[in-house]
């Protein structure tokens, strides 16, 4: 059982900034995220895109924002459960919440802050009629353990960075790698595209374009895939393989959170914005893009504000009746749980003669 003060669901910018604000109040945080890395949309969808409305940053790349937020909060030693989706929540008699992930990891906290953005990212499944029959029987939408492909025949479908990067990686692991894409053009980073070209020239990757996987052949596991290729004349043929990995990106789904008994409106969680961004269940807060209230704006900077307000309410729940006044970091400095201290340099007092 992982125990913490504030359990944050979602490790996007709002969740990451919560770590800092909570830390100033001496509250510890643990974050759960379905993605294997922190940053949420900023790292999954658009890490190389600039953002222009983060206060004091005229321009910052989404990936860099994630890095900066991690750095800002690191002295407060946040815990992470990554690559797992928060599945169920129960409230114990002592007021503690237990949140269990899809992999069975249990977390206990008196306060839960849902900073889930648009939801947890689920792989987009291609429209192949029998694909669900082969899930975990040779069809994988996410590569978790590359070793399972050692000396196997692998087909990857997709045209983005993850398709290219995994092709490059698996060309040294699998006995055969085939890349299938609907176009001849790929939109990955130039060096990845060039590397795949080089591996194709060396015969280490088979490239089938412009083509689409339209069926899967096999009894209990994948034996081959059916490909429709539309170069010059349209033709259909089978490619023998042990694994088929469709990499068509991820799309966010609110998912299990929708069944937690929270008041939902327009795919978002209703909160009390006049007070503390608490949901209809006391002790559960929703901050950032995942919440809604009159006048809501889905902006990172609004998520930061909501996180800050929420932490004050969390402090009151965790330390009932305890007196506290907000302090400026410039005055109080930042005392990390790791023993570090940041503080403003003392003014130099010197006599003028």
């Amino acid at each position: 059982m992982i125990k913490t003060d504030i359990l944050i669901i979602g490790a996007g910018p709002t969740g990451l900034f919560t770590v800092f604000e909570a830390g100033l109040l001496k509250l510890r945080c643990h974050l759960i995220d379905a993605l294997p890395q922190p940053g949420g949309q900023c790292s999954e969808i658009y890490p190389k895109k600039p953002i222009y409305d983060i206060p004091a940053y005229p321009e910052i790349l989404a990936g860099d924002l994630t890095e900066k937020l991690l750095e800002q909060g690191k002295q407060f030693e946040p815990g992470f459960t990554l690559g797992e989706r928060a599945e169920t929540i129960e409230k114990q008699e002592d007021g503690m919440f237990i949140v269990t992930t899809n992999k069975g990891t249990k977390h206990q906290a008196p306060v839960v802050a849902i900073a889930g953005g648009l939801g947890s990212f689920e792989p987009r499944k291609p429209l192949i009629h029998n694909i669900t029959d082969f899930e975990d029987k040779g069809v994988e939408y996410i590569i978790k353990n590359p070793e399972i492909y050692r000396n196997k025949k692998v087909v990857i479908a997709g045209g983005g960075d993850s398709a290219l990067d995994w092709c490059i990686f698996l060309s040294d692991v699998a006995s055969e790698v085939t890349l299938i894409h609907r176009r001849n053009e790929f939109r990955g980073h130039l060096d990845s595209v060039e590397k795949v070209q080089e591996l194709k020239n060396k015969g280490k990757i088979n490239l089938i374009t412009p083509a689409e996987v339209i069926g899967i052949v096999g009894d209990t596991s994948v034996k081959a895939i059916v490909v429709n290729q539309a170069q010059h004349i349209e033709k259909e043929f089978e490619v023998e393989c042990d694994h088929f990995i469709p990499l068509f990106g991820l799309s966010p789904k609110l998912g299990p959170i929708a069944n937690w008994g929270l008041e939902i409106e327009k795919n978002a969680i209703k909160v009390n914005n006049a007070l503390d961004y608490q949901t209809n269940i006391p002790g559960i807060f929703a901050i950032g893009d995942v919440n809604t209230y009159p006048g809501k704006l889905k902006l990172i900077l609004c998520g930061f504000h909501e996180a800050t307000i929420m932490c004050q309410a969390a402090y009151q729940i965790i330390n009932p009746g305890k007196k506290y006044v907000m302090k400026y970091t410039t005055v109080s400095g930042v005392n990390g749980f790791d023993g570090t201290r940041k503080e403003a340099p003392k003014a130099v007092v010197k006599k003028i003669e």
Partner: protein
Amino acid sequence: MSDVNITIIDREGEAHTIEAPTDMAMNIMEVVRAYELAPEGTIGICGGMAMCASCQCYVLSEHDLPEMQDDEDAMLAEAFYVKDNSRLGCQIPVTPEMDGLKIELAPES
């Protein structure tokens, strides 16, 4: 005011003829969201960067639309339910020439 009329068929097949402003730098995806013709969270997920295809639509009328850029083309190459008349709504700004435009939202995927 320079509003144009646009007909949008939602994902349930219902047609809505709506007035879209041409002076607010809005695109088709944003118009759909402004009129709530698709549930929040199912359209415009990436915010309009041509990076998610959640605003894919089929262009049903013969309007001259801005030419497709590489990023839109590449995104559509990875999207599902793509047809010859597919476009990403977020890449089509609303302009006065668009009066009478008719589009259909592609299924959610």
